[in-house]
């Protein structure tokens, strides 16, 4: 039960209904399942016509930074393929986020 995609809120009406946009496609979704206030410009996760949750863009950025760091270390040779284990040990279950 999984099809779902991040979308940006572009409009909210008085019935707690929002217009959201994904890759240039706009559509209406219900905000009835979101407990906290949602603002225009924020990202939400959509499933079958409902926003399920706000997307924490800070957490998303941290994840992406983490992958960039790996890329840099692999390029620098800090983690080479042969020394891959060193890089791995940094990636224990609690480091990211």
């Amino acid at each position, binding site marked *: *039960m*999984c*099809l*779902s*995609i*991040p979308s940006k809120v572009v409009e909210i009406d008085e019935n707690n209904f929002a217009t959201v946009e*994904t*890759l240039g496609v706009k559509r209406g979704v*219900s905000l*009835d*399942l*979101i*407990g906290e206030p949602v603002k225009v410009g924020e*990202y939400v*996760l959509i*499933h*079958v*016509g*409902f926003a*399920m*949750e*706000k*997307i*924490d*863009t800070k*957490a*998303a*950025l941290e*994840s*992406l930074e983490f*992958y*960039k760091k*790996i*890329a840099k270390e*692999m390029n620098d040779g800090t*983690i080479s*393929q042969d020394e*891959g*284990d060193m*890089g*791995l*040990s940094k*990636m*224990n*279950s*609690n480091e*990211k*986020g």
Partner: protein
Amino acid sequence: MDLINDFRDKTHILNLSKLIKKASNKPLNIMEICGGHTHSIMKFGIDKLVGENIKFIHGPGCPVCVMPRHNIDEAIKLSSMPNTIFTTLADMLRVPGSFSTLQKQRAKGCDIRALYSPLDAINIALENPKKNVIFFAIGFETTTPMSAVVVEKALNLNLKNLFFHINHVTVPAPVMALLDDENVKIDAFLGPSHVSVIIGSKPYEKIAKTYKKPIAISGFEPLDMMDSILNLVNQFNENKFEVYNEYDRVVKPNGNEKALNLIKKYFKEVDFSWRGLGLIPKSGLDLKGEFDAINARKVFDCSVESKPENKACICGEILKGRKNPPDCKVFGKVCNPQNPLGSCMVSSEGACAAYYKYKRGS
């Protein structure tokens, strides 16, 4: 920031691929519980990016696939009643019951509509006040709160012509049922994405500790999955069994509390008979007794006689990780996506359907 394409970045994915292959030095069976993960694995070829040691076992996480014949037979009976509009979510139309499918019933003239959003059921009921509208609700925790919202709206609007046939199921129950079977061959789990958005990361902690299995809650994008798989390999190598929340941009420890409260308000736990896995106590949901007036099971005659599952089908074994789709005698022959016999072939998310679509003959 682009929340879709950034998480499909080729360089990062190939980097993680190298790291996973390097770290993965002994056989590791990872079960992805969720059908969406199965789909991503096949669509993006993730199984070919992680090396020979890792084997994916496709779990019971497709709500369409796990729907027992009996419930579909009930749906078909309800949809055949006069003066009725029967509504459900799209994929459900193809799933075979004992004698027919909803798609075939529609061809016979029954008014059966595939909805994009459960909210559409409200509009259909409002627009057709003289007809009985039935919403056949399916899905895991991801769609349960949406059904609860529709129930709430129907009650607030005092709609007398909208009835609910609830077939919601929960994720932790079948996972524990699988792990209670000592023959099961699963070393680690990829935790579902959107079920976890609703239930949070906490419910998995007990499973990880009790059964000593590492769990990584992962998003559906390939980069999310590669990150999670790398974490599982590391935990496995280090004999750890923790819950790693890779999808922390939307999954919180306690989940979506508003959605969980709505579920509690309208639904109660019931036993559910899973296609392929059998009866699992308290793994399904139905409307609470005080809502009998809108419960299609209580209002209408749902008695049906269902055929037993086909004996040649090995879906139960596949779901437990003991067999692969090609091991099945009927796979790709009498059982195919056009004419599915077993649960794993019925939806495009099912293990057999995914194998058939992306890997047949490879």
